[in-house]
């Protein structure tokens, strides 16, 4: 995935109905691009057998009251 620009982040936030205040846009853009760097690199790791699932016990108890 390529680098997100501040304009793109602004548009995404507006579409999600989330406010950006003074100083937010630059930092959120840096944070999102840091995620893109690290998580994008996961494509190089073989995760084919890694089934996403929560770390929950296999035998949940009865439904909560």
């Amino acid at each position: 995935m390529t680098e997100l620009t501040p304009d793109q982040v602004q548009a995404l936030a507006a579409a999600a109905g989330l406010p950006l205040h003074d100083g937010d846009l630059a930092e959120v853009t840096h944070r999102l691009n840091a995620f893109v760097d690290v998580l994008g690199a996961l494509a190089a790791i073989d995760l084919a057998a890694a089934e996403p699932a929560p770390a929950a016990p296999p035998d949940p108890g009865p439904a909560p009251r």
Partner: protein
Amino acid sequence: MTADLAYRTATDLAGLIRARTVSPVEVVQAYLARIDRWDGTLRAYVTVCRERALDEARAAEQALGHGAPVGPLHGVPFAVKDQFDTAGIRTTSGSRLHADRVPAEDATVVARLRAAGGILLGKLNLTEFALGGTLTYPFGQPRNPWDQTRETGGSSSGSGIAAAAALAAATLGEDTGGSVRSPASWCGAVGLRPTWGLVPRAGCVPVAWSMDAPGPLTRSVEDAALLLSIIAGPDGRDRWLQPARTDPRADLERGAGGLSIGVVTALVNSPDTDAEVRGAVRAAAETLRGLGGRVEDVDLPLLPIAGAVFMALADGEAAAWHHPTLAARGADYDPGTRRRLVTAALLPATLAQQAARARAAIRAQVWDALARYDVLLAPTGPTAAPPIAAAQAPIVSRAEAGRRFFNRRSYTTPASLAGVPALSLPCGFTVGGLPIGLQLIGRRFDEATLLRAARAYERATDWRARRPPLPG
């Protein structure tokens, strides 16, 4: 005299109170005196329940006089992170948004500590909504008792301070990605993250449902085991809870002989790990070897990405919980919290799914290692407590964002992603006098072995005897 009494462990105090060597009133007064003396600076507490605690102490004293049966914490003052609901006492979650929120009932864990005879001394400071990165704390900047210009670690900041500085006999925090272990490490306390699914979350304001784990911060391993024995087990309100399979105190004094211990080289040898931290952790491994443990290096190559994987997943869960409030009252959040939540809310779904798959792979590595070793050993964090000012500087690049937010979290989040228990305890001090934390990671629902290893190390060293430089 007040300090000597206050620095006693909760286990010691419970014994002294039961034997009527000290009175609960005397003990509560000792902690209130220390809070009066130090909390204006350290800011461990959001709310101090002064009169209520004294009333309960007098009642506890009367109960002893009448020979009534008493619980294991009878008359012992404890304090809890202000993320746990307390009936009739405001629960702020460290946020202006909840500044006036007063729950109607206690969180399960609070109710259990009170039912065991404990006296609630107050509610403890935290990063906003138990997310890290708060820039301006509405209830005061928490300060490290060893150096007040330094961070305390979070999110259970006040719990770490109060445990280390003897502002309570024992405390409770909540650990999603290291929120018990990090403040324990930086403040010089013992912090236990239990197995996910062992301790009830009812009445705990959530961070990330799939990783939240309430746990104790204390001045001894024995106290951590005692508190866990009280708070663990199903409460009928959380379907994922399972009963403890053993008493966490069962093997506490068995020593380290025969334990197999894997040293996590990906974290110990990481270039992010300070040399002093690496040296202290390697020395701790040698101490455990000297006690009869079989110590070997273990390679878990995915762990360095755990911090980013954790933030993609846990922050996404948090963003979902906060979304309506964030959309309506975004300006009322601290900017650090708001930026973190907005980032998570905007993360592309494909990347979040990649993170979920990476979590499964990290969990498999941790579980496979724990099939070969009784416990894993690593630093709790790459450094001792950094300056407060460093965390408040603006983020000016994506590389810096990665360094600031992902790297250090890779030390504590593997246990969170894998759902296994982990504990931090002091294993040395920097030349500047700051505590260094040793992290031990155990098998699911095998807190007894984890605590056994920790207790063996604690007993063989004298780090616990050091006190922060707080005269009086």
